[in-house]
């Protein structure tokens, strides 16, 4: 039966074929990782400070906001939607957490955090509802929503504390970025991550092999584990060095494990559960998903809400990093970094393709560009230009990938 069946695998030159395959399939994170490594090498050559402990720690905390924003937008892009209000929603969430933990209100931090996150989710819920219910492009709905939130946030910021903005006064809020794990816990975290990731990789291979399915080559598994261990140990050492100028500072910033946990959870949702499967199905072919019985509209709204929630968390990091928000320090363009980070990380603008880890790398690339250019005294305008060029390159990779996929049909 198997010899006489539908199949038309073309016999082509193996090199050409694998090149085509690389372009056509989700070639994974290879181009993103390559870009990141190149950027790191370049900046290390240009500035000897780049890979020093203090700067690496700085880089990681800078990256936290970008990474979280890119992850937030990834939920939308995966479905072929976009949420332009995420930037202001995140600023608003951070602002609310800042206001209500302030001595004037004195709320306990969990309540204030939840309030901020709820506000961001609510905004996203409204956008999602309007998009789904009235079948309007999410681009327009969220563009309008962005202006509304921008107005509300700036009004509120100018009103509180006589226009002085919201300072961060709560220790927990400040320590999201400024606080560190103790050196011992830092190593515990590093080892746990290395062991955990390696175990998952090995376990997956064993399960597949025992089920008689094609499995990843052994050397690939070994290489992956080696890279994870190497990077982990390197960062462990970097973070255990004293990087303070006046008082000793060491350990991994709290932001890192927080982002890590969130990435792990989201990746699990997307890769291992029905929920994630439906997200990809809707993004790739909404009609097919609907016919297969997927409640498409409900999942679209879920995606908006997860985007809002993640943007809210980014907002907490944002205000923690800035030490407070005033209307003059708000940045209307952060939502563009959210989209840029996701797309640079290989999340397709057309829906259906992309991974959370990609968004993380995209966010890190944005942070590296900003940080590196500042070190070589090319901040401001140069940062816009370089980010723009990298973004366009990423979009081209996405579009070319799509096109060769369509040609293959």
């Amino acid at each position, binding site marked *: *039966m*198997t010899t*006489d*069946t*539908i*199949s*038309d*695998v*073309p016999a082509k030159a193996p090199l050409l074929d694998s090149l085509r*395959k690389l372009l*056509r*399939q*989700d070639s994974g994170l290879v181009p993103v990782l390559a870009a990141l490594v190149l950027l790191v090498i370049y900046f290390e050559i240009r500035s000897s400070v780049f890979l020093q402990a203090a700067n690496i720690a700085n880089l990681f905390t800078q990256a936290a906001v970008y990474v979280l924003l890119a992850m937030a937008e990834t939920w939308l892009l995966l479905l072929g939607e976009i949420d332009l209000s995420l930037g202001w929603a995140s600023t608003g969430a951070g602002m609310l957490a800042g206001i209500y933990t302030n001595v004037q209100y004195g709320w306990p931090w969990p309540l204030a955090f939840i309030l901020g996150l709820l506000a961001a989710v609510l905004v996203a819920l409204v956008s999602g509802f309007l998009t789904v219910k009235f079948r309007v492009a999410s681009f327009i709905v969220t563009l309008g929503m962005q202006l509304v939130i921008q107005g509300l946030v700036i009004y509120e910021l100018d009103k509180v504390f006589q226009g002085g903005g919201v300072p961060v006064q709560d220790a927990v809020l400040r320590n999201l970025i400024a606080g560190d794990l103790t050196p011992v816990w830092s190593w515990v975290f590093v080892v746990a991550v290395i062991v955990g990731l390696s175990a998952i990789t090995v376990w997956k291979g064993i*399960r*597949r092999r025992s*089920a*008689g*399915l*094609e499995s990843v080559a052994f050397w690939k598994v070994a290489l992956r584990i080696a890279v994870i261990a190497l990077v982990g140990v390197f960062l462990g050492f970097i973070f255990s060095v004293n990087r303070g100028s006046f008082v000793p500072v060491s350990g991994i910033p709290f932001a890192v494990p927080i982002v890590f946990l969130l990435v792990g959870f989201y990746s699990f*949702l997307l890769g*291992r*559960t*029905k*929920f994630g*499967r439906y997200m*990809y*199905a*809707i*993004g*790739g*072919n909404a*009609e*097919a*998903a*609907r*016919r*297969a*019985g*997927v409640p498409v509209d409900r999942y679209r709204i879920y995606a908006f809400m997860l985007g809002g929630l993640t943007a809210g968390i980014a907002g907490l990091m944002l205000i923690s990093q800035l030490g407070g928000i005033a209307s003059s320090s708000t940045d209307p363009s952060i939502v563009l970094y959210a989209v840029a980070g996701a797309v640079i990380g290989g999340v397709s603008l057309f829906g*259906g*393709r992309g991974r959370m880890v990609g968004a993380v790398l995209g966010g890190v690339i944005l942070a590296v560009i900003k940080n590196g250019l500042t070190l070589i005294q090319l901040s401001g305008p140069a940062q816009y230009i370089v980010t723009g060029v990298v973004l366009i390159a990423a979009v081209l990779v996405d579009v070319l990938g799509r096109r060769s*996929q369509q040609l*293959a*049909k």
Partner: protein
Amino acid sequence: MSDTPILELRHVSKSYGSVKALTDVSLKAYAGEIIGLVGDNGAGKSSMIKTISGVYTPDEGEILVDGTPRHWRSPHDAIAAGIETLYQDSGLAPDLTIGSNIFLGRELRRRSLLGRLGFLDQRSMESQAMQELEKVGISIGAAKRTVSELSGGQRQAVAIGRAAMWAKHVIILDEPTNHLGARQSIEVLKVMKAARDRGLCVLFISHTLPHVLEVTDRIIVLRLGRIVRDAPTSEFTVESLLGTITGLSQ
């Protein structure tokens, strides 16, 4: 072949505004037969399959599955009743693997505690998908490849395989051989025969009359929303079928 039709339409009519798409259509379809559904563009083929598969609700008349009157509120109801439809544009999610596509909407969870936490049983889904596809005559290699990596013919094979695998009673194929090469078309016809031999009722919609004549047991000809002929395939030739479709000769 039992006496109760597995699928029956009784006096079904459907119109969009002033346009009558279907007028008083009645048919009986039995398990284990392939029925060809032919007609010119606008004859009502699409309206008919969309009514059967739950995309449209008929204005008048009723649909019976295995002798019981049924009412579809959505395509999902028809699927639950054992009627699978393969539309012209294949209903696959390009970025999911073959296995995931086969199980889309019917995902399996792991049977351990992890399953209760939401872990899917990817392993079982992939190996079952392979086995089931081979049962209906389709071998596509590894189930782990995404659909976007497949050629047009392979995609169609996966789509047909999915429909054939899940259909309990009726499988509706709308132009399944469109855009396929000669060899692949023959394979598709084989899959249809295999489905019939497993006791399914196959509704085959096509413009390619030689295919229809080759594979079907019975042919239903639609013209302007009405059934104008319903007869065993042996009573037709390409010429007489063409004449019936166009209405130039009966």
